[in-house]
């Protein structure tokens, strides 16, 4: 037999060695070597090598299946140990898990919000080809402000003129009283083109999208409204009666649409053909090029590019709009177009529409809040894990002594922190689902559990669990298992240095919480200021009722009859009417005097307006029934006089520049500057007049606030006598005003709750940290007690350590809070001052909180019998 041993080739041999199960590493390689010799001897070098190569390949499947099996067994073991450890320390685990869970809940909710915002209008087929027509009036708008209101007649014109346009969809609206059987309500009806369902992807629960709007008398309604009017009946084919003003028409239900998705800017409850508007409103509505009221959406052909259309728009404007405009605006010409058009991508319209209200900024700010909270919670989590680990040195030492190798120990701690994170995530999601209705209320959205449980979210969730789990477990896993078991058991390692890290983290948490608290305080104060400020007119006890007529004469009749009937009720003080309620007002009304021209806000009113809203003239007189020429009279406010530098207002003539000279409006009275718009804006120039031409939409009634419910009933009965066919829709001005600030309200609520969250988490963090700090020093405290120290002394000892921490936290957060609050308040013309008092109060509160936490921990520990403390080792 050949005695010389042939060495198997290094690389292949190394590979096969890797694939041998752990328990047999020593002997297994010997087996392969032995066989190698034999084959070498029998068949030669190359066959031996081939054999070895083959072995490598064939060993792989066995290796894989064994690994998986082992991992599952090990996994189960680690999870079990992890779970036992968690249960062993219920308080710590509870604090840690709930802290992180809360942080996760907040982040989840906010992420849902942001996702929803960013996904608006993305569900339409071919959405890259869908656009809305943006309109800019250079005279009144800033150069980049494009609104969405177009004339109805422009829709077909665009389709004819531009080959790029495949379909044009108009989306007008009008209110009508809808009737079926006993049910009768005032609803908003949408008017659109035949191809609506071809262009937009709205699902129909019943009916065929291709034909739903082929008939002029077809109507499509949503499931919700189908139920409202038809209950359980099948609505398809049935008749709905719609009454617009005094014009009635029957429509046949041709389709039922699914309820509107929560990310659509295009919303409807009832949909009919726009051609009906000629009857329901007027011929003017569908032919007038000057009436810019409703959006128009375009679907471009596949190969067309929006840029080429944008370039051609000026020509279009010249062809169609300039001729129409020059009839009443002589400045309109080819060189000076009265209107500029531009295509807006359908994915952008949500942020465009909400930009005015700062919604894209909202998104950014919300994400910052989510990030803050999550940061606080994660820091907490890691902090507490670290603090807890330092208590377990003895345990680690024992485990090492009993034979655990370092890798196993590391894996154990990682699995522990991952399991905790997993539980937190699960809790966080459940919490988020529970809080969804409340959050929807706060954020003005309709988010559902379905939005939450998308595959993307779930994947992100799992990823987060692993990242946070491994990160927070890293400290104990890596650092602490590195120590030699002997040293640990002898208690040489006290983990002194880590306290600094812990303290910094807690200070950071507190700083963030204090920051949020300060912002919340000032935002809240601003809100209450705005709601509470005297508006300058009598907003309490002022009720507005929708007239719902379309013709001036009809409106005036309603007013007259109402006034007559109301006279018999003493609690109804004054009745008047206006074109619009407070907070709005037709802006951009140009006036001209000898001195110059100005754009003002205009209110069209009826007699007794000022009496009704409770504003007294500074000088001059109110509109009077007796004086016929009062139809050309106006009342202005101080601001207008100041800006135009008019010294003697009474009798001054002014007019609309398009009417030309002589100006036929005369100033008969002056009112003080009252807040007819929101407090966000400075009080601007305003005129009130009774010029005919457009209508009065709302009755204004001032009532005695003593007996509101009864008076409301009276109002309703008066209404029923005058307008039995129309629903009684009313609201209180004070409510309307509060609603103006709904954005702020929402904001404030979110900030408020977030702050509570953040503070709670920081509190838990501080509590956890301090209780560890105290328990770590049980022995020390025991000794001190034996030596005669009183609980108070021990208390002072700990307080000294942490006072600095809280003061530092305050110091960091104050400047940041100050700048942020100032930034926010810039948006409001009428705003509160940033008083230092609140900073001091917050600081004091934070110190108080810290003292409380310390007291609780110290009392719990220091009251133990020193003998017991010294005995625990």
């Amino acid at each position, binding site marked *: 037999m050949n005695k010389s*041993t042939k*060495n*198997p080739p290094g690389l292949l041999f190394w590979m096969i060695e890797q*694939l*041998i*199960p752990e*328990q*047999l590493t*020593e*002997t*297994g*390689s*010997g*087996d*392969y*070597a*032995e*066989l190698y*010799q034999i084959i070498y001897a029998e068949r030669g070098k190359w066959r031996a090598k081939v054999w070895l190569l083959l*072995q490598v390949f*064939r*060993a792989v499947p*066995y*290796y894989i299946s*064994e690994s998986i099996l082992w991992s599952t067994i090990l996994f189960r073991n680690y999870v079990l140990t992890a779970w036992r450890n968690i249960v062993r320390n219920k308080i710590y685990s509870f604090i840690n898990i709930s802290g992180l869970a809360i942080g996760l809940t907040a982040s989840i909710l906010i992420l849902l919000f942001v996702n929803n915002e960013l996904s608006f209008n993305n569900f339409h087929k071919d959405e890259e080809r869908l656009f809305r027509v943006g309109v800019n009036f250079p005279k009144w708008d800033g150069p980049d402000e494009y609104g969405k209101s177009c004339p109805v007649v422009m829709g077909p014109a665009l389709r004819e003129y531009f080959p790029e346009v495949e379909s044009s969809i108009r989306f007008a609206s009008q209110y009508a009283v809808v009737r079926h059987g006993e049910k009768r309500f005032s609803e908003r009806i949408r008017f659109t083109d035949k191809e609506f369902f071809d262009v937009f992807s709205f699902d129909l629960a019943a009916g065929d999208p291709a034909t739903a709007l082929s008939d002029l008398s077809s109507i499509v309604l949503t499931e919700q409204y189908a139920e409202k009017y038809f209950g359980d009946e099948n609505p398809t084919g049935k008749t709905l009666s719609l009454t617009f003003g005094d014009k009635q028409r029957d429509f046949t239900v041709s389709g039922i649409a699914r309820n509107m998705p929560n990310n659509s800017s295009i919303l409807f409850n009832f949909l009919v053909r726009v051609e009906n508007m000629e009857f329901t409103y007027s011929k003017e509505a569908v032919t007038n090029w000057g009436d810019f009221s409703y959006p128009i959406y375009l679907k471009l052909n596949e190969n067309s590019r929006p840029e080429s259309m944008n370039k051609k728009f000026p020509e279009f404007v010249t062809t169609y709009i300039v001729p129409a405009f020059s009839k009443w605006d002589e400045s309109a010409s080819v060189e000076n177009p009265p209107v500029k058009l531009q295509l807006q991508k359908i994915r952008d319209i949500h942020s465009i529409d909400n930009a005015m209200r700062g919604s894209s900024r909202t998104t950014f700010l919300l994400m910052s809040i989510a990030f803050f909270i999550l940061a606080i919670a994660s820091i907490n989590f890691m902090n507490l894990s670290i603090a807890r680990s330092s208590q377990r040195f003895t345990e680690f030492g024992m485990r090492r002594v009993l034979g655990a190798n370092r890798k196993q120990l590391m894996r154990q701690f990682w699995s522990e922190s991952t399991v905790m994170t997993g539980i937190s995530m699960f809790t966080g999601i459940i919490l988020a689902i529970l809080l969804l209705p409340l959050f929807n209320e706060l954020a003005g959205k309709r988010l559902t559990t379905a939005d939450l449980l998308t595959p993307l979210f779930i994947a992100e969730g799992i990823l987060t669990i692993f990242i946070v789990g491994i990160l927070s477990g890293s400290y104990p896993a890596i650092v602490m298992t590195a120590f030699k078991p002997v040293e640990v058991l002898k208690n040489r390692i006290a983990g002194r240095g880590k306290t600094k890290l812990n303290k910094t983290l807690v200070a950071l948490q507190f700083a963030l919480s204090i920051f949020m608290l300060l912002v919340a305080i000032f935002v809240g104060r601003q809100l209450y200021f705005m709601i509470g400020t005297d508006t300058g007119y009598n907003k309490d006890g002022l009720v507005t009722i929708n007239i719902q007529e379309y013709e001036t004469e009809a409106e005036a009749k309603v007013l007259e009859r109402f006034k007559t009937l109301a006279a018999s009720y003493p609690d109804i003080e004054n009745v008047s009417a206006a074109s619009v309620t407070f907070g709005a007002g037709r802006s951009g009304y140009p006036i001209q005097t000898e001195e110059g021209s100005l754009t003002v806000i205009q209110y069209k009113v009826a007699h007794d307006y000022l009496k009704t809203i409770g504003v007294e003239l500074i000088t001059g007189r109110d509109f009077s029934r007796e004086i016929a020429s009062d139809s050309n009279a106006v009342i202005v406010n101080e601001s207008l006089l100041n800006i135009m530098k008019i010294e003697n207002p009474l009798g001054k003539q002014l007019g609309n520049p398009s009417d030309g000279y002589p100006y036929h409006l005369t100033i008969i009275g002056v009112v003080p500057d009252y807040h007819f718009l929101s407090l966000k804006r400075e009080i601007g120039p305003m005129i009130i007049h009774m010029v005919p031409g457009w209508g009065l939409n709302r009755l204004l009634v001032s009532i005695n606030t003593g007996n509101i419910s009864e008076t409301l009933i009276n109002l309703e009965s008066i209404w029923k006598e005058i307008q039995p066919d129309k629903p009684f829709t009313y609201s209180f001005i004070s409510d309307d005003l509060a609603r103006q600030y709904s954005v702020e309200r929402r904001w404030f609520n979110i900030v408020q709750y977030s702050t509570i969250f953040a503070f709670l988490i920081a509190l838990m963090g501080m509590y956890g940290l301090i209780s560890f700090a105290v328990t770590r020093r049980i022995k020390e405290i025991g000794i001190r007690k034996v030596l005669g120290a009183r609980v108070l002394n021990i208390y002072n000892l700990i307080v000294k350590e942490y006072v600095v921490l809280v003061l530092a936290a305050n110091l960091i957060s104050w400047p940041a809070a100050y700048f942020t609050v100032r930034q926010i308040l810039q948006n409001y013309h009428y705003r509160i001052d940033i008083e230092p008092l609140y900073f001091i109060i917050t600081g004091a509160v934070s110190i108080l909180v810290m003292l409380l936490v310390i007291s609780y921990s110290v009392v719990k520990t220091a009251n133990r019998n020193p003998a017991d403390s010294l005995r625990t080792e």
Partner: protein
Amino acid sequence: MKIISRVEELIMLSIWRLGEEAYTVPIMEEANRHTGSKWILSGIFIPLNRLEKKGLIASELGDPTPERGGKRKRFYKITDEGFAALKEVRDVEKSMWDGLSDIPA
């Protein structure tokens, strides 16, 4: 006691047959001789581990030899529990096959 698998049974029987010289390589060759299928070392390692973990076989390290690149051998023998398990398998098989007619040719 758990019923051992076919593979485990065959390996244990190979160990039994080999007596003193029962280490991985001869076990593999013995099994190959009887079953005709090509067992490979990887396929032996794992069942050997499992059996040892279950306590049905026991092992001892031998001396290193030069052909094995200086590595030792691991010698296996069947434990009492192992024999009990084999007996159980045989009893189960007997009772299962009992009364069944012959396999059709």
